[in-house]
């Protein structure tokens, strides 16, 4: 009996091995190039259908290429990619953003794209690639542009007795507006600002620090213990004490509240419109009646700033299918189909192109929100010196910001301790 079972198991194992071999051969024999694409677009409910549709259209146009989309959350992707690079198993293409692009580039395993760019370069906005160089080489292709703007809810402003067509232009005006909103609508969060401890939060706070004249990290130099930084920390503390901000929430956690008219001002990227509309099914016309977006209220420096939170595509040096991978990257970033389906769809970001590729997209970009970003906000973008040093500094700086916002410790020792921690890096 036992012998019969053993023989049966052996036959089954042999059959399974042969079947697997045949299947493998069939996949290899059909001549399809299989590309792995690590991205968070497929991990988020808002963008998943759009990225799947864009991929399906690419596969339809290129029947010899198959895309295997690997969904990884935004906050995990850099970590996972670094570990996969180190274990010799990176994807072919990945979606990255902000500091994460430079953290992964520091591994030295991203393919420089200068030689691939060709005529694509002339179609891109020159500014869209200027900050994507690592050690002099272009390491990423801009996919979407998503700068941050100062969003204001006109209905909440009107209810507070403020002029909804004149959002605050300075930090002082902003403080007064928040006081009026808090007084008239105590259940509304006056300002949505990300104060979590992560590199993205530092990137998001960077323009606010800049408008106070503070730049806590410049290349490898740290300067957190400065009067400008203390002024910024003091301002944030005042906001928290007055209940104008809700510390500890990620910016993504404010978005559903914004869709419910529970937030008056939101410091967020261009994609906020898509998230709000996908949450409350508001029409475009109603959205523009309810929401406006403008430049950041200027602080003591007198200048308004923004940060570019757009997404990039990177190609890994270990990819065996670089030509196909580049075609896919180019398709996502520059083709009218992908821009229509994904970039201007639920992604509601801006394409990196200097000019709209056709009349339909030109018309789609002609909205009050896109025009405000294109003409007024993008020129205010400031980019910090990204890289592993920025990631390492972000923990120290945002821990200091949190301490200023949530404790009553004097600001001077907080700034000093931030400086000491930055110096120890």
């Amino acid at each position: 009996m036992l012998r019969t079972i053993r023989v049966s198991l052996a036959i089954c194992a042999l059959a399974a091995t042969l079947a697997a071999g045949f299947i493998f051969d069939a996949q290899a024999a059909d001549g399809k190039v299989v590309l792995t694409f690590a991205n968070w677009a497929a991990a988020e409910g808002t963008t998943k259908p759009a990225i799947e549709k864009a991929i399906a259209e690419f596969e339809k146009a290129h029947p010899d290429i198959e895309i295997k989309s690997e969904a990884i959350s935004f906050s995990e992707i850099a970590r996972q990619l670094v570990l996969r690079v180190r274990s010799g198993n990176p994807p072919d293409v990945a979606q990255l953003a902000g500091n994460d692009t430079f953290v992964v580039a520091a591994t030295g395993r991203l393919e420089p794209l200068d030689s691939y760019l060709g005529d694509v370069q002339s179609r891109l906005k020159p500014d869209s690639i200027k900050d994507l160089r690592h050690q002099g080489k272009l390491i990423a292709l801009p996919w979407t542009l998503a700068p941050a703007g100062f969003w204001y809810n006109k209905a909440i402003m009107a209810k507070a007795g403020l002029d909804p067509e004149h959002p605050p232009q300075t930090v002082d005006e902003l403080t007064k507006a928040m006081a009026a909103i808090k007084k008239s609508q105590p259940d509304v969060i006056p300002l949505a600002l990300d104060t979590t401890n992560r590199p993205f939060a530092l990137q998001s706070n960077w323009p606010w620090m800049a408008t106070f004249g503070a730049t806590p990290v410049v290349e490898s130099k740290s300067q957190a213990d400065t009067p400008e930084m203390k002024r910024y920390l003091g301002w944030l503390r005042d906001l928290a004490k007055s209940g104008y901000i809700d510390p500890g929430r990620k910016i993504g956690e404010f978005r559903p509240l914004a869709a419910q008219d529970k937030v008056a001002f939101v410091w967020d990227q261009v994609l906020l419109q898509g998230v709000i509309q996908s949450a409350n099914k508001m029409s475009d016309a109603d959205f523009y009646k309810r929401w406006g977006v403008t430049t950041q209220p200027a602080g003591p420096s007198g200048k308004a700033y923004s940060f570019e939170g757009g997404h990039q595509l990177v190609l890994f040096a270990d990819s065996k299918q670089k030509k196909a991978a580049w075609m896919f990257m180019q398709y996502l970033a520059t083709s009218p189909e992908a821009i229509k389906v994904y970039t201007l769809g639920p992604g509601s970001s801006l394409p990196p192109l200097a000019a709209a590729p056709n009349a339909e997209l030109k018309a789609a970009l002609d909205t009050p929100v896109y025009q405000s970003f294109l003409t007024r906000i993008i020129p205010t973008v400031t980019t910090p010196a990204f890289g592993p040093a920025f990631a390492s500094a972000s923990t120290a700086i945002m821990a200091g910001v949190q301490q200023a916002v949530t404790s009553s410790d004097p600001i001077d020792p907080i700034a000093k301790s931030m400086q000491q921690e930055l110096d120890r890096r």
Partner: protein
Amino acid sequence: MMEAASAHATNVLRRKRRGTPWLDSMVAPALGVLAIVVGYPIVYTLVLSAHDYDLAGTEAPRYIGVANYHKLVEDPTFWKALVNSGIYAFGSVAVAALIGLALALLTEDLVGRKGRIARMLLLAPWAVPFVVTAFLFRYMYLQNGGAINAALIETGLIRAPIPWLNSAYLAMPAVMVANVWAMAPFFFLLLSAALAGIPNEVIESARVDRASRFDLVVRIKLPFLRNALLIGSLLMIIANFNDFAKIWAMTQGGPGYSTTTLVIYVYRQAFEKFAFGYASAIGVVWLVLLLGFAMAYLRALRAN
């Protein structure tokens, strides 16, 4: 007669074993597996701790001797994380053990359907996954729209919402409350079982001696529960020292470093700064601390 026979059989077995040392080699496969799954990571961590190893960089790991340990001694965040780990682990276990003990004593005499339902309800938090517990409490603690603040405001106990997780002073106690809620059922279960194991004769004779309820608990039951409490506490202190999910999901170690424990600090060093050498040095210190603690605890247990 039976005892004599048993002793004789044991002696025969011992004599036989002395003559067959190959029997000892039967544990070799188990030791081999342990050496791979436990020994190798420990040795590799020790080796890494003596290197400057940036996982995100292009340079090869560089031997730096004890420099990571020097850095660690001078790193105030490490000390803060160590203190936080102690407060979190010992504080949570002490409170959860007390609550578990009280619940076990209160429900000891409950029998029938009522008893079963009460025990089932009291054990329910233990069945909730830790990450779910963390998010549950995180949303209940929200400053704007959280259930706890809403209830306190509604009942007139407070006028303005309390920033439970957004206060450098309240965040640690708030996280510990969630942890105690999740852990108390473990002690309840363990101590209920230990209470059921107390011989009836002991309880009866104490009653015959007219021991008060207080004396019965303090002088009779608690000494019987001592070993269960010691073992349960040891397990839970080690588990809490290594607790990542609850703290990360609720505060990510913030605000500032107010809820940063060693495990959070190691995670940030290893997977945000990619400083694997320094993270390994912290891991080694952490391992030595836990081993020392476990040994002291086991010695105390053996002494009893």
